[in-house]
């Protein structure tokens, strides 16, 4: 069994569902036009992942492999419908903005993917952790892409924060660039694709830097100490 730390690292970075597995791109690209929208959908997806991994791990010995997938889909669909109803009741305005993408969490391949690849084979604790880590990894992708598109596209950050955190948060909205005309491309769908591409490239550069032989780093440290 993997250690929790390993699972967390896996979900957030090594096997990030958005940046590495490239799963769940439809909601990722559609809802990442502002930071708050991204955060809202990310958290709803994370909750779904944790709950579906929990339930599927609990019943993994009682469900034969023949009906495994329909049962997983049933579980995920029930969980998402319950989350949708709760959001409709208690986060109504956010629910209106995220709209169709809440019920569409059911079709996010990342969720059935984790159910099949992890939760159906691992104990409950590790499965919950995996759901949490994968969910947070997906959320961070949505938040980073959302923040970048919001700043470049509209010159603000945390717009509509009151939809999530209540009226007291409405002054959280920051105007990053004053008198900004807006850069339409960043808000429109092409901006999402380009932004995602750049973020994946950035991640690959960081990974490549880290993967360089440690020998060099040691030498350089040594050199800098000497200097």
């Amino acid at each position: 069994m993997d250690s929790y730390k390993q699972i967390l690292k896996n979900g957030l970075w090594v096997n990030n569902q958005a940046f590495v597995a490239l799963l769940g791109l439809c909601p990722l690209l559609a809802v990442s036009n502002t930071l708050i929208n991204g955060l809202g959908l990310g958290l709803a997806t994370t909750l779904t992942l944790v709950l579906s991994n929990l339930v599927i791990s609990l019943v993994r010995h009682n469900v034969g492999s023949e009906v495994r997938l329909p049962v997983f889909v049933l579980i995920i669909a029930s969980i998402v419908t319950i989350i949708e109803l709760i959001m409709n009741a208690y986060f109504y305005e956010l629910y209106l903005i995220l709209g169709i993408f809440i019920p569409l969490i059911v079709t996010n391949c990342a969720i059935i993917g984790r159910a099949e690849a992890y939760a159906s084979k691992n104990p409950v604790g590790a499965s919950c952790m995996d759901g949490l880590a994968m969910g947070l990894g997906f959320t961070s992708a949505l938040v980073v892409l959302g923040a970048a598109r919001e700043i470049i596209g509209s010159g603000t950050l945390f717009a509509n924060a009151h939809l999530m955190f209540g009226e007291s948060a409405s002054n959280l909205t920051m105007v990053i660039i004053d008198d900004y005309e807006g850069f339409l491309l960043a808000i429109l769908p092409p901006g999402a694709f380009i932004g995602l591409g750049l973020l994946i490239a950035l991640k690959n550069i960081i990974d490549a830097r880290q993967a360089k032989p440690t020998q060099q780093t040691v030498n350089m440290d040594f050199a800098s100490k000497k200097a």
Partner: protein
Amino acid sequence: MTNTNKVIIKSAWVLGLFSLIGIGLVSLTHNVTADKIADNERLFVLKNLRVLVPDEMHDNDLLTDVIEFSAPDSFGNKHPVKIYKAFKNQQLVAIIASPTAADGYNGSIKLLVAIRKSGELIGVRVVSHQETPGLGDAIDSNKSDWIHSFAGLSLNNPELSAWQVKRDGGHFDQFTGATITPRAVVKAVRKTLQYYQANKDALVTNEKKSDG
């Protein structure tokens, strides 16, 4: 019974059981949240109506004094459209119609059009749309002031032939890079005003459903 049959029957039971549990949990949540959701939807409509017809203008419950009219040609909607009536001291002061501009750039634009008894517009608001961000979405009252330009206008002001965007030789501004969206909104508002004028007798009755 063969082994395969056993497996099939067991699988069917498992699937059935999970369906039942799933339905049970969803129904339970639905029951718990149903009132709150209905409340949210009510308040959301009311909030939009109040922007156009604020509380000091009327003393009735707008959501109770509502009638439905079916006029696909005027309201761009094949289903009956709600018309809310505002009363003050038992007298009808205004109506709010909810037409749809079906010919937006990207799908339908849902509007609220508030008309004073005299036929003068109190104002127009966009309730929902999917127009292009940064271009057509200037019809949204929190994106630009354009939608406010309807306040105080009527079918004679400007004259009927000027109920078009400037590019078509009319009175109303279009936006840079977006003519289709404002054109659709102007047309929908004009049709609603024309419907009001033609059916004024049926609409402007002092009958009300709410108390008081």
